[in-house]
Protein backbone atom coordinates (compact mmCIF):
# COMPACT_ATOMS: atom_id res chain seq x y z
CA UNK A 1 0.00 0.00 0.00
CA UNK A 2 1.76 3.08 -1.21
CA UNK A 3 1.38 6.09 -3.43
CA UNK A 4 4.24 6.88 -5.77
CA UNK A 5 4.31 9.87 -8.08
CA UNK A 6 7.03 10.13 -10.64
CA UNK A 7 8.07 13.03 -12.83
CA UNK A 8 4.67 14.63 -12.80
CA UNK A 9 4.31 17.69 -14.98
CA UNK A 10 1.34 20.00 -15.04
CA UNK A 11 0.17 22.43 -17.64
CA UNK A 12 -2.73 24.84 -17.22
CA UNK A 13 -3.95 27.11 -19.96
CA UNK A 14 -0.78 26.95 -22.02
CA UNK A 15 1.44 27.45 -19.05
CA UNK A 16 3.76 24.85 -17.67
CA UNK A 17 3.24 25.02 -13.93
CA UNK A 18 5.75 22.43 -12.76
CA UNK A 19 7.51 19.37 -14.03
CA UNK A 20 9.56 16.46 -12.75
CA UNK A 21 7.79 16.37 -9.43
CA UNK A 22 8.24 13.04 -7.71
CA UNK A 23 7.38 11.85 -4.24
CA UNK A 24 6.17 8.76 -2.50
CA UNK A 25 3.97 7.95 0.43
CA UNK A 26 4.00 4.81 2.53
CA UNK A 27 1.60 4.00 5.35
CA UNK A 28 2.05 6.40 8.25
CA UNK A 29 3.69 9.04 6.12
CA UNK A 30 2.58 12.50 5.17
CA UNK A 31 3.77 14.86 2.47
CA UNK A 32 3.43 18.58 2.94
CA UNK A 33 3.38 20.37 -0.38
CA UNK A 34 4.81 23.83 -0.01
CA UNK A 35 5.26 26.66 -2.42
CA UNK A 36 4.40 30.26 -3.02
CA UNK A 37 0.99 31.34 -4.29
CA UNK A 38 0.49 29.93 -7.76
CA UNK A 39 3.29 27.40 -7.44
CA UNK A 40 0.89 24.61 -8.36
CA UNK A 41 0.09 23.01 -5.01
CA UNK A 42 -3.60 22.79 -5.67
CA UNK A 43 -2.94 21.55 -9.17
CA UNK A 44 -0.68 18.79 -7.89
CA UNK A 45 -3.27 17.72 -5.36
CA UNK A 46 -5.96 17.63 -8.01
CA UNK A 47 -3.75 15.50 -10.19
CA UNK A 48 -3.24 13.05 -7.36
CA UNK A 49 -7.00 12.97 -6.87
CA UNK A 50 -7.40 12.21 -10.57
CA UNK A 51 -9.36 15.41 -11.06
CA UNK A 52 -6.80 16.83 -13.45
CA UNK A 53 -4.76 15.02 -16.03
CA UNK A 54 -1.01 15.54 -15.73
CA UNK A 55 0.88 16.57 -18.79
CA UNK A 56 3.47 13.89 -18.21
CA UNK A 57 4.51 11.48 -15.54
CA UNK A 58 2.94 8.66 -13.60
CA UNK A 59 1.28 8.19 -10.31
CA UNK A 60 0.78 4.74 -8.94
CA UNK A 61 -1.30 3.33 -6.13
CA UNK A 62 -0.35 -0.17 -5.05
CA UNK A 63 2.07 -0.08 -7.92
CA UNK A 64 -0.62 0.43 -10.55
CA UNK A 65 -1.03 3.57 -12.60
CA UNK A 66 -3.99 5.56 -11.35
CA UNK A 67 -4.59 7.21 -14.72
CA UNK A 68 -5.05 3.97 -16.60
CA UNK A 69 -8.65 3.38 -15.59
CA UNK A 70 -7.42 1.71 -12.48
CA UNK A 71 -10.37 0.93 -10.25
CA UNK A 72 -8.23 -0.09 -7.30
CA UNK A 73 -7.69 3.58 -6.41
CA UNK A 74 -11.39 4.35 -6.16
CA UNK A 75 -12.58 4.75 -2.61
CA UNK A 76 -9.06 4.61 -1.21
CA UNK A 77 -8.54 8.35 -1.20
CA UNK A 78 -10.48 11.39 -0.16
CA UNK A 79 -10.01 14.82 -1.64
CA UNK A 80 -10.81 18.00 0.24
CA UNK A 81 -10.44 21.13 -1.82
CA UNK A 82 -10.98 24.84 -1.63
CA UNK A 83 -14.68 24.42 -2.19
CA UNK A 84 -16.72 23.17 0.69
CA UNK A 85 -18.96 20.74 -1.20
CA UNK A 86 -21.76 21.45 1.24
CA UNK A 87 -25.37 21.71 0.24
CA UNK A 88 -26.47 24.81 2.07
CA UNK A 89 -30.10 23.80 2.13
CA UNK A 90 -29.32 20.62 4.03
CA UNK A 91 -28.32 20.45 7.67
CA UNK A 92 -24.90 19.46 8.90
CA UNK A 93 -26.10 15.98 9.71
CA UNK A 94 -27.81 15.50 6.37
CA UNK A 95 -24.70 16.57 4.54
CA UNK A 96 -22.42 14.24 6.41
CA UNK A 97 -25.00 11.48 6.35
CA UNK A 98 -25.12 11.46 2.60
CA UNK A 99 -21.39 11.28 2.17
CA UNK A 100 -20.96 8.68 4.86
CA UNK A 101 -23.45 6.43 3.09
CA UNK A 102 -21.89 7.25 -0.21
CA UNK A 103 -18.57 6.04 1.13
CA UNK A 104 -20.18 3.08 2.80
CA UNK A 105 -19.54 4.21 6.37
CA UNK A 106 -22.67 4.22 8.46
CA UNK A 107 -21.16 5.77 11.58
CA UNK A 108 -22.11 9.40 11.33
CA UNK A 109 -22.30 10.10 15.03
CA UNK A 110 -18.61 9.66 15.65
CA UNK A 111 -17.77 11.81 12.66
CA UNK A 112 -19.92 14.55 14.11
CA UNK A 113 -18.29 14.14 17.50
CA UNK A 114 -14.78 14.44 16.19
CA UNK A 115 -15.24 18.08 15.36
CA UNK A 116 -17.79 19.02 18.01
CA UNK A 117 -20.60 19.24 15.53
CA UNK A 118 -23.36 17.61 17.55
CA UNK A 119 -24.64 20.96 18.73
CA UNK A 120 -24.76 22.28 15.21
CA UNK A 121 -26.03 19.15 13.57
CA UNK A 122 -29.53 20.35 12.76
CA UNK A 123 -28.55 23.74 11.38
CA UNK A 124 -28.58 24.16 7.61
CA UNK A 125 -24.97 24.50 6.54
CA UNK A 126 -25.76 27.77 4.78
CA UNK A 127 -26.15 29.35 8.20
CA UNK A 128 -22.78 28.32 9.56
CA UNK A 129 -19.77 30.52 10.06
CA UNK A 130 -16.78 29.94 7.82
CA UNK A 131 -14.95 27.86 10.39
CA UNK A 132 -18.02 25.80 11.18
CA UNK A 133 -18.34 24.98 7.50
CA UNK A 134 -14.76 23.88 7.43
CA UNK A 135 -15.30 21.62 10.41
CA UNK A 136 -18.25 19.99 8.69
CA UNK A 137 -16.06 19.47 5.69
CA UNK A 138 -13.37 17.87 7.85
CA UNK A 139 -15.88 15.69 9.63
CA UNK A 140 -16.80 14.25 6.27
CA UNK A 141 -13.21 13.24 5.87
CA UNK A 142 -13.32 11.16 8.98
CA UNK A 143 -16.58 9.68 7.77
CA UNK A 144 -14.79 8.00 4.90
CA UNK A 145 -12.60 4.96 5.08
CA UNK A 146 -10.04 6.50 2.75
CA UNK A 147 -6.43 5.54 3.38
CA UNK A 148 -5.04 8.52 1.56
CA UNK A 149 -6.15 11.99 2.51
CA UNK A 150 -5.56 14.70 -0.05
CA UNK A 151 -6.11 18.02 1.67
CA UNK A 152 -5.92 21.46 0.12
CA UNK A 153 -5.58 24.11 2.83
CA UNK A 154 -7.30 22.10 5.56
CA UNK A 155 -6.54 24.71 8.21
CA UNK A 156 -7.96 27.84 6.64
CA UNK A 157 -10.75 29.43 8.69
CA UNK A 158 -10.16 27.11 11.65
CA UNK A 159 -9.38 28.64 15.04
CA UNK A 160 -6.43 27.48 17.12
CA UNK A 161 -8.45 24.99 19.10
CA UNK A 162 -9.68 23.18 16.05
CA UNK A 163 -6.33 23.32 14.34
CA UNK A 164 -4.96 21.38 17.27
CA UNK A 165 -7.88 19.00 17.11
CA UNK A 166 -7.41 18.44 13.41
CA UNK A 167 -3.73 17.84 13.92
CA UNK A 168 -4.49 15.23 16.52
CA UNK A 169 -6.91 13.55 14.18
CA UNK A 170 -4.37 13.59 11.39
CA UNK A 171 -1.72 12.07 13.60
CA UNK A 172 -4.13 9.32 14.58
CA UNK A 173 -4.89 8.69 10.94
CA UNK A 174 -1.21 8.33 10.22
CA UNK A 175 -0.65 6.15 13.24
CA UNK A 176 -3.38 3.86 11.98
CA UNK A 177 -1.44 3.39 8.78
CA UNK A 178 -3.07 6.15 6.78
CA UNK A 179 -1.33 8.58 4.49
CA UNK A 180 -1.80 12.26 3.86
CA UNK A 181 -0.87 14.68 1.13
CA UNK A 182 -1.63 18.24 2.04
CA UNK A 183 -0.90 21.82 1.16
CA UNK A 184 -1.17 24.70 3.58
CA UNK A 185 0.48 28.02 4.21
CA UNK A 186 -0.13 27.75 7.93
CA UNK A 187 2.00 25.87 10.38
CA UNK A 188 1.30 22.20 10.74
CA UNK A 189 4.33 20.63 12.34
CA UNK A 190 4.19 16.88 12.30
CA UNK A 191 6.76 14.24 13.02
CA UNK A 192 6.53 12.05 10.02
CA UNK A 193 6.12 14.70 7.42
CA UNK A 194 8.12 14.95 4.25
CA UNK A 195 8.28 18.35 2.65
CA UNK A 196 7.82 18.79 -1.08
CA UNK A 197 8.69 22.29 -2.13
CA UNK A 198 7.37 23.26 -5.53
CA UNK A 199 9.37 26.48 -5.47
CA UNK A 200 12.52 24.41 -5.88
CA UNK A 201 11.42 23.53 -9.35
CA UNK A 202 10.55 27.05 -10.38
CA UNK A 203 13.86 28.57 -9.42
Amino acid at each position, binding site marked *: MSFVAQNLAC*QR*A*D*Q*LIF*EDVSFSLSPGEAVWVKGRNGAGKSSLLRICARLLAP*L*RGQAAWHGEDIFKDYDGYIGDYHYLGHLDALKYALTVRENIDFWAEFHGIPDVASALDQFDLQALSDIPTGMLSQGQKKRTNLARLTASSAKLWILDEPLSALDLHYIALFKERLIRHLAEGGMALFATHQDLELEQVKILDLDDWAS
Partner: protein
Amino acid sequence: MAIDLHKYANPKRFLAITGAIYPWSVGLTVVLLLVGLYLSLFVAPPDYQQGDTVRIMFVHVPAAWMALMIYTMMAISSAVGLIWKHPVADLTAKASAPIGACFTFLALVTGSLWGQPMWGTFWVWDARLTSMLILLFLYLGYMAIWESFDDPVKAAKAAAILALVGVINIPIIRFSVDWWNTLHQPASVATMDGPKIHSTILIPLLVMGLAYTAFFVMVLIIRVKAEILKRRLRVLQIAELRES
Protein backbone atom coordinates in the same frame (compact mmCIF):
# COMPACT_ATOMS: atom_id res chain seq x y z
CA MET B 1 11.46 16.20 -26.24
CA ALA B 2 8.75 18.77 -26.68
CA ILE B 3 5.49 18.51 -24.93
CA ASP B 4 3.46 15.43 -25.59
CA LEU B 5 4.23 15.00 -29.21
CA HIS B 6 2.19 11.89 -29.68
CA LYS B 7 -0.89 14.06 -29.36
CA TYR B 8 0.24 16.08 -32.29
CA ALA B 9 1.07 13.11 -34.49
CA ASN B 10 3.17 13.73 -37.49
CA PRO B 11 1.06 15.63 -40.02
CA LYS B 12 3.92 15.93 -42.48
CA ARG B 13 2.54 13.45 -44.94
CA PHE B 14 -0.86 14.99 -44.74
CA LEU B 15 0.54 18.39 -45.56
CA ALA B 16 2.55 16.96 -48.45
CA ILE B 17 -0.47 15.29 -50.00
CA THR B 18 -2.77 18.26 -49.60
CA GLY B 19 -0.02 20.51 -50.87
CA ALA B 20 -0.07 18.50 -54.10
CA ILE B 21 -3.83 18.60 -54.40
CA TYR B 22 -4.23 22.26 -53.59
CA PRO B 23 -3.24 23.83 -56.94
CA TRP B 24 -5.55 21.44 -58.74
CA SER B 25 -8.43 22.37 -56.48
CA VAL B 26 -7.84 26.05 -57.15
CA GLY B 27 -7.74 25.52 -60.87
CA LEU B 28 -10.81 23.31 -60.87
CA THR B 29 -12.76 25.75 -58.74
CA VAL B 30 -12.04 28.65 -61.04
CA VAL B 31 -12.74 26.80 -64.26
CA LEU B 32 -15.83 25.02 -63.05
CA LEU B 33 -17.27 28.15 -61.50
CA LEU B 34 -16.79 30.13 -64.68
CA VAL B 35 -18.29 27.41 -66.84
CA GLY B 36 -21.08 26.77 -64.39
CA LEU B 37 -22.01 30.42 -64.08
CA TYR B 38 -21.94 30.86 -67.86
CA LEU B 39 -24.17 27.84 -68.36
CA SER B 40 -26.58 28.76 -65.63
CA LEU B 41 -26.91 32.45 -66.43
CA PHE B 42 -26.80 32.43 -70.22
CA VAL B 43 -27.31 28.95 -71.60
CA ALA B 44 -29.97 27.39 -69.42
CA PRO B 45 -33.45 28.29 -70.66
CA PRO B 46 -36.10 29.73 -68.37
CA ASP B 47 -38.43 27.11 -66.99
CA TYR B 48 -41.89 27.09 -68.56
CA GLN B 49 -43.43 27.12 -65.09
CA GLN B 50 -41.00 28.98 -62.91
CA GLY B 51 -39.58 31.33 -65.50
CA ASP B 52 -36.12 32.67 -64.84
CA THR B 53 -36.29 31.93 -61.14
CA VAL B 54 -35.16 28.45 -61.96
CA ARG B 55 -31.68 29.92 -62.20
CA ILE B 56 -31.65 30.22 -58.43
CA MET B 57 -31.53 26.46 -58.42
CA PHE B 58 -27.96 26.56 -59.67
CA VAL B 59 -26.72 28.16 -56.50
CA HIS B 60 -29.37 26.80 -54.16
CA VAL B 61 -29.25 23.08 -54.79
CA PRO B 62 -25.45 22.65 -54.77
CA ALA B 63 -25.28 24.61 -51.54
CA ALA B 64 -27.88 22.31 -50.01
CA TRP B 65 -26.00 19.27 -51.20
CA MET B 66 -22.75 20.51 -49.75
CA ALA B 67 -24.39 21.35 -46.45
CA LEU B 68 -25.59 17.80 -46.03
CA MET B 69 -22.44 16.19 -47.33
CA ILE B 70 -20.09 18.19 -45.15
CA TYR B 71 -21.91 17.29 -41.96
CA THR B 72 -21.64 13.62 -42.78
CA MET B 73 -17.99 14.01 -43.52
CA MET B 74 -17.47 15.91 -40.31
CA ALA B 75 -19.10 13.17 -38.28
CA ILE B 76 -16.94 10.53 -39.93
CA SER B 77 -13.80 12.53 -39.22
CA SER B 78 -14.90 12.97 -35.63
CA ALA B 79 -15.40 9.25 -35.24
CA VAL B 80 -11.95 8.60 -36.68
CA GLY B 81 -10.49 11.17 -34.33
CA LEU B 82 -12.27 9.74 -31.32
CA ILE B 83 -11.57 6.08 -32.02
CA TRP B 84 -8.09 6.14 -33.54
CA LYS B 85 -7.04 9.34 -31.83
CA HIS B 86 -5.78 10.74 -35.08
CA PRO B 87 -5.39 14.48 -34.50
CA VAL B 88 -5.57 15.42 -38.17
CA ALA B 89 -9.04 13.89 -38.29
CA ASP B 90 -10.16 16.14 -35.43
CA LEU B 91 -8.70 19.13 -37.16
CA THR B 92 -10.36 18.25 -40.44
CA ALA B 93 -13.70 18.05 -38.71
CA LYS B 94 -13.04 21.37 -37.04
CA ALA B 95 -11.96 23.03 -40.26
CA SER B 96 -14.94 21.83 -42.26
CA ALA B 97 -17.61 23.00 -39.83
CA PRO B 98 -17.53 26.71 -40.76
CA ILE B 99 -17.58 25.81 -44.43
CA GLY B 100 -20.59 23.60 -43.90
CA ALA B 101 -22.29 26.32 -41.91
CA CYS B 102 -21.69 28.78 -44.75
CA PHE B 103 -23.25 26.44 -47.28
CA THR B 104 -26.20 25.79 -45.00
CA PHE B 105 -26.67 29.50 -44.62
CA LEU B 106 -26.53 29.95 -48.38
CA ALA B 107 -29.06 27.19 -48.98
CA LEU B 108 -31.37 28.91 -46.50
CA VAL B 109 -30.94 32.37 -47.95
CA THR B 110 -31.19 31.40 -51.59
CA GLY B 111 -34.07 29.08 -50.79
CA SER B 112 -36.05 31.78 -49.09
CA LEU B 113 -35.28 34.24 -51.89
CA TRP B 114 -36.67 31.61 -54.18
CA GLY B 115 -39.63 31.01 -51.94
CA GLN B 116 -40.94 34.57 -52.23
CA PRO B 117 -41.67 34.43 -56.01
CA MET B 118 -42.65 30.76 -55.90
CA TRP B 119 -44.74 30.43 -52.75
CA GLY B 120 -45.36 34.08 -52.02
CA THR B 121 -43.49 33.96 -48.73
CA PHE B 122 -39.90 33.96 -47.63
CA TRP B 123 -40.36 31.14 -45.22
CA VAL B 124 -42.70 28.27 -44.64
CA TRP B 125 -42.27 25.67 -41.99
CA ASP B 126 -41.80 23.00 -44.58
CA ALA B 127 -40.01 19.79 -43.70
CA ARG B 128 -37.01 20.38 -45.85
CA LEU B 129 -36.62 23.96 -44.75
CA THR B 130 -37.03 23.17 -41.10
CA SER B 131 -34.53 20.36 -41.12
CA MET B 132 -32.08 22.65 -42.88
CA LEU B 133 -32.51 25.24 -40.16
CA ILE B 134 -31.86 22.60 -37.55
CA LEU B 135 -28.77 21.55 -39.44
CA LEU B 136 -27.54 25.12 -39.17
CA PHE B 137 -28.05 24.95 -35.41
CA LEU B 138 -26.08 21.72 -35.28
CA TYR B 139 -23.22 23.34 -37.13
CA LEU B 140 -23.26 26.38 -34.88
CA GLY B 141 -23.33 24.23 -31.77
CA TYR B 142 -20.41 22.21 -33.03
CA MET B 143 -18.39 25.33 -33.72
CA ALA B 144 -19.33 26.83 -30.37
CA ILE B 145 -18.08 23.75 -28.55
CA TRP B 146 -14.67 24.12 -30.16
CA GLU B 147 -14.51 27.72 -29.07
CA SER B 148 -15.58 26.97 -25.53
CA PHE B 149 -12.60 24.91 -24.47
CA ASP B 150 -9.17 26.33 -23.94
CA ASP B 151 -7.52 22.98 -24.28
CA PRO B 152 -7.69 21.75 -27.89
CA VAL B 153 -7.42 18.10 -26.91
CA LYS B 154 -10.43 18.42 -24.66
CA ALA B 155 -12.27 20.50 -27.22
CA ALA B 156 -11.69 17.88 -29.88
CA LYS B 157 -13.18 15.15 -27.73
CA ALA B 158 -16.16 17.22 -26.71
CA ALA B 159 -16.84 18.28 -30.27
CA ALA B 160 -16.55 14.70 -31.47
CA ILE B 161 -19.06 13.52 -28.89
CA LEU B 162 -21.44 16.18 -30.06
CA ALA B 163 -20.95 15.52 -33.77
CA LEU B 164 -21.61 11.82 -33.28
CA VAL B 165 -24.69 12.29 -31.14
CA GLY B 166 -25.82 14.82 -33.75
CA VAL B 167 -25.32 12.52 -36.69
CA ILE B 168 -27.45 9.81 -35.12
CA ASN B 169 -30.13 12.42 -35.00
CA ILE B 170 -29.92 13.78 -38.52
CA PRO B 171 -31.85 10.93 -40.12
CA ILE B 172 -34.27 10.96 -37.20
CA ILE B 173 -34.84 14.67 -37.63
CA ARG B 174 -35.22 14.32 -41.36
CA PHE B 175 -37.64 11.48 -40.96
CA SER B 176 -39.68 13.07 -38.21
CA VAL B 177 -39.88 16.45 -39.87
CA ASP B 178 -40.88 14.97 -43.18
CA TRP B 179 -43.53 12.95 -41.54
CA TRP B 180 -44.76 15.78 -39.36
CA ASN B 181 -45.22 18.00 -42.33
CA THR B 182 -47.08 15.58 -44.53
CA LEU B 183 -49.45 14.91 -41.70
CA HIS B 184 -50.61 18.50 -41.65
CA GLN B 185 -50.04 19.69 -45.14
CA PRO B 186 -49.84 17.14 -47.88
CA ALA B 187 -47.14 17.97 -50.40
CA SER B 188 -48.28 21.37 -51.42
CA VAL B 189 -44.75 22.55 -51.65
CA ALA B 190 -43.38 22.55 -55.14
CA THR B 191 -40.24 20.54 -55.34
CA MET B 192 -39.02 19.75 -58.75
CA ASP B 193 -37.62 16.32 -58.30
CA GLY B 194 -38.76 13.59 -60.55
CA PRO B 195 -38.06 12.92 -64.18
CA LYS B 196 -38.78 16.47 -65.29
CA ILE B 197 -35.24 17.72 -65.11
CA HIS B 198 -34.03 18.51 -68.57
CA SER B 199 -30.39 18.18 -69.49
CA THR B 200 -30.12 21.92 -70.19
CA ILE B 201 -30.80 22.36 -66.52
CA LEU B 202 -29.19 19.22 -65.19
CA ILE B 203 -25.80 19.89 -66.75
CA PRO B 204 -25.28 23.39 -65.31
CA LEU B 205 -26.53 22.07 -62.01
CA LEU B 206 -23.97 19.28 -61.99
CA VAL B 207 -21.20 21.63 -63.06
CA MET B 208 -22.05 24.02 -60.25
CA GLY B 209 -22.18 21.10 -57.87
CA LEU B 210 -18.69 20.05 -58.88
CA ALA B 211 -17.49 23.64 -58.65
CA TYR B 212 -18.79 23.88 -55.09
CA THR B 213 -17.10 20.60 -54.24
CA ALA B 214 -13.80 21.82 -55.62
CA PHE B 215 -14.22 25.05 -53.69
CA PHE B 216 -14.85 23.08 -50.55
CA VAL B 217 -11.72 21.01 -51.03
CA MET B 218 -9.67 24.14 -51.64
CA VAL B 219 -10.88 25.99 -48.56
CA LEU B 220 -10.70 22.86 -46.45
CA ILE B 221 -7.04 22.41 -47.32
CA ILE B 222 -6.30 26.01 -46.37
CA ARG B 223 -8.14 25.71 -43.09
CA VAL B 224 -6.70 22.36 -42.09
CA LYS B 225 -3.23 23.65 -42.79
CA ALA B 226 -3.90 26.67 -40.65
CA GLU B 227 -5.15 24.43 -37.85
CA ILE B 228 -2.09 22.20 -38.02
CA LEU B 229 0.25 25.15 -37.96
CA LYS B 230 -1.64 26.63 -35.06
CA ARG B 231 -1.16 23.47 -33.08
CA ARG B 232 2.46 23.54 -33.92
CA LEU B 233 2.70 27.14 -32.84
CA ARG B 234 1.15 26.20 -29.53
CA VAL B 235 3.61 23.41 -28.95
CA LEU B 236 6.50 25.72 -29.72
CA GLN B 237 5.16 28.44 -27.49
CA ILE B 238 4.85 26.02 -24.62
CA ALA B 239 8.33 24.66 -25.23
CA GLU B 240 9.59 28.24 -25.26
CA LEU B 241 7.91 28.94 -21.99
CA ARG B 242 9.50 25.92 -20.44
CA GLU B 243 12.94 26.97 -21.52
CA SER B 244 12.67 30.47 -20.18
